[in-house]
């Protein structure tokens, strides 16, 4: 038997042994109705200031804003002719933002103007998504004691998993591309440019409302895509890493689903977090580029 095979078999054995052990020790418990899954995503006001109340989503937003500004300014200040690893990574990111997101989707002069906005949008969403996968002590509903101090329990939470954050970002983009369209083509020209060329007469009555609706649908699809991706990812990680076991009262189920939780965590961290930020920025660039051209 080869050593890889032995290792794999022993890991599998350990896994099965864990399931059996937990089943024997804890058995099959009762359903737990006091644990509510939506409380994990609830926003509790920490500082009450009316509409400006500070809750954990606000803290996450502030952290990612600071991260976006500080890391990029810090690296930009320390540019060297012979780049080190960090600088190479950031330069790759920069060329991704400049060429793939902005440059491919709009003209040169426009790309220069909109690059700071789209780059900041990408980085802000990206950092928001990434810090969502670091467990931070933010769940103030459930506390535990360390040397007599009540510490909020550690939780995965992302500000982008709250629908209002992507909605505001999408609104900014929506206003921006409509403004850009009206500015370059005039109000009437912009409305005309929404309708595909070659549509005349009665077909106009059918097509025009559809095109107007589809413009507004961009707002919804931008919002829901980002929010639902992040929320669903966090929920699946939560369910697989123990919430299912807690709700159903089956301790061994937590051990059983743990590998799935780790795999999904890596998938979300490695692919979804970056991809969603990229998609949001790319679609914004496509909308902006599309607003100034006739089609």
């Amino acid at each position, binding site marked *: 038997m080869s050593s890889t095979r032995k290792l794999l078999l022993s890991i599998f054995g350990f896994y099965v042994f864990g399931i059996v052990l937990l089943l024997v020790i804890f058995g099959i418990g009762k359903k737990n109705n006091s644990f509510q899954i*939506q409380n994990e995503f609830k926003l509790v006001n920490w500082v009450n200031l009316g509409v400006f109340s500070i809750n954990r989503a606000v803290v996450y937003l502030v952290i990612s804003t600071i991260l976006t500004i500080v890391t990029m300014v810090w690296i930009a200040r320390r540019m060297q002719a012979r780049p080190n690893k960090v600088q190479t990574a950031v330069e790759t990111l920069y060329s991704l933002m400049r060429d*793939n997101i902005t440059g*491919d989707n709009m003209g040169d002069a426009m790309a220069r103007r909109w690059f700071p906005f789209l780059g900041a949008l990408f980085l802000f969403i990206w950092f928001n998504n990434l810090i969502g996968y670091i467990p931070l002590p933010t769940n103030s509903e459930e506390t535990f004691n360390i040397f007599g101090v009540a510490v909020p329990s550690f939780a995965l939470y992302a500000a982008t998993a709250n629908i209002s954050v992507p909605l505001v970002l999408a609104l900014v983009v929506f206003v921006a591309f409509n403004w850009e369209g009206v500015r370059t083509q005039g109000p009437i020209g912009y409305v005309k440019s929404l309708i595909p060329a070659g549509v005349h007469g009665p077909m106009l009555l059918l097509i025009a409302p559809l095109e107007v609706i589809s413009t507004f649908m961009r707002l919804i*699809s931008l919002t*829901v*895509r980002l929010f*639902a*991706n992040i*929320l*669903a990812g966090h929920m699946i990680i939560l369910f697989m890493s123990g919430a299912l076991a807690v709700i159903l009262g089956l301790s061994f189920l937590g051990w059983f689903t743990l590998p799935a939780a780790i795999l999904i965590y890596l998938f979300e961290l490695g692919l979804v977090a970056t*991809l*969603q930020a*990229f*998609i949001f920025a*790319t679609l914004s660039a496509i909308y902006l580029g599309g607003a100034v051209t006739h089609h």
Partner: protein
Amino acid sequence: MLTTIISFAASSGVGAGLGIGIGGGLGAVGAGVGIGIIFGKVIESVTRQPEMRDEITSIQWLGFALTEAVFFYGLVAGLLSYVLK
């Protein structure tokens, strides 16, 4: 068939949980087919024109993310039906 399932579930008292099942399940079916088509076509076109690889890769992720979001629309609709029951 769907109406039979729904009426059966309503009579047996499963109710709101069904929303997540149908929403997430049918969403996953659609998104699964779509993602399969996207990656199948990418493999096809890269084998046909290997020099276009970089360009195809960047479009591929756009298509993947747009298709994958469809699954989440279904899931969110299901969750809404569960939460707002």
